[in-house]
């Protein structure tokens, strides 16, 4: 079905990071770079999620999705 290690990095990490992290950062006066921690947390997870997905693709998944097949119509290359 779906590859487990890919699910762990690509789905598990962002979901735990955002939904698991929210209770910890929601009700605090802490600030990072002048921003309330709550907003900073969400901002940070935007690029981090992209990184997680890119790692999944590069490490685990790209071989299972071969490059788009060329039309096999015998056209000269």
């Amino acid at each position, binding site marked *: 079905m*779906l590859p487990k290690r890919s699910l762990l990095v690509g*789905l598990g990490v962002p979901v735990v990071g955002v939904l698991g992290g929210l*209770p910890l950062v929601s009700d605090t006066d802490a600030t990072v770079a*002048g921003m309330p921690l709550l907003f900073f947390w969400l901002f940070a997870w935007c690029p981090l999620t992209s990184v997680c997905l890119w790692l999944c693709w590069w490490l685990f998944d790209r071989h*299972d*999705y071969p490059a788009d097949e060329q039309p096999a119509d015998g056209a000269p290359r």
Partner: protein
Amino acid sequence: MTLLTFALILLGALGLGIASRLGMKKADIEDYLVAGRSFGGLLVFVLAVGEVYSIATIVGFPGGIYAQGASYGIWFMGYILLAYPLGYFLLPLIWRAGKRYGASTYPDVFRGHFGSRGLELVVAIASIVFLIPWGQLQLTGLQVVFEALDLPISPDLAAVLGAAAAFGFIVLSGVRAPAFVSLVKDVVLIVAVLAVGIAAVAAVKGVPALFESARATPASVTMSGDAFRFSWTTILFQAAAFYMFPFFALAIFSGRSERTVKRTQTFMPMYMVMYPFLVFASFYAIETVPGLEGAKANTAFMTVAQDLTSDWILGIVAGAAALSAIVVLTVGSLVIGALISRNVLPGLSQSRQRRTTQGVVLAYLGVSLLLTLATPKLMVTIMNTAYFGVGQFLPCMLIVLFGGRFRPAAIAAGIVVGDLLAIVLDQLDVAAAGINLGLIALAVNCLVLAVSRLLWPEPDPPEPIAAIVARGRRERRGRRERPPLPAQPPAGAR
């Protein structure tokens, strides 16, 4: 000057919309609705981004933070963000299902997979019901923007022009037009947001000052209690429901391959870099223009833009708003047209499907326009309600992808029960300790499915898409690892 940049942006979009006709090969309905499944990564990306970030991005989002505080901004960002990892895993499978069943809409997939006309009809009609407010939402947003920006175009005229542009694009080239227009729209939107956000930070000399006075009202920078529970459960539910929104079918199915749609998802979260700047602009509004009451809160972003930026940037903001509304209107009405011509009315020929689609689009845009001009109203909670409804399709899609002994009638019953419950809870304005009402409806929907599984299981379920994909992959691997044996000499040759 404002009008000049605005006009240049719209002309550029119009030019690309017309240029999108050039890629059309043949005039069949698959080419019209899903571009003959030919789009590469760039076009799938811009079309998907075009659909996600509607005019609510610069109207509803800053307005929500202004009026309701941090919890609104957090769920808004959180659900979009978490939809992408889910899409990374599900979209390639949905694409494969679309290819296998020659689908342009989700009900096409369900008809093909389960062979059930009833289920197809239930999903098609529910999709249409929950999409109807969407058109009005975009046009109302357009009015808000033009009212706040004080341009020589009246808000009503802007709404009329927006609807007319959407119809023109659809007649011109179907789904190709919004995809090409999105090339301009996605760039212009991010430029507008960055410009206004940076201007807001610069005006108060640094980020910390933006949040200074907001601290006096804790709800604007923190969340707890019901607000926290609403935010958390809404992120969970809407992230799961996200790609069930009927118009994403067009973006997914127009992709060239599973690889294309999967790779696209790895880049989608990067577009969200604009959100910090939207938040900065929102807090600048809280800080410097207090007292925007009710619907006026929706003008927060435009007010900041007007106060802080020069004329030509205002033109960009207006252009971004107009194109965001037009792209979403175009895709939304195209999808409603497809749902009616392919799923509600069965067995139309290809050319009839195309004409019916265009007729429905015209009617949908006309009705949306009338509603907008006649009953201007708040654009706050319409979005949540639409998600309550379309989120109920998720179990059905998961069964297509991963299987399970569920009868199509039971799946349809789950959707009907979930959707009716969602509408009732929403109308009664039930406050379930903040828990997202769509999530409650989804739980009941799943309960219906579980009971049917126990008492009345499907004896012979169709092979799930994930199993078909896995089998194909094993076969491909097998071929790679074991080169074909040399041909055996025919028996009896010796």
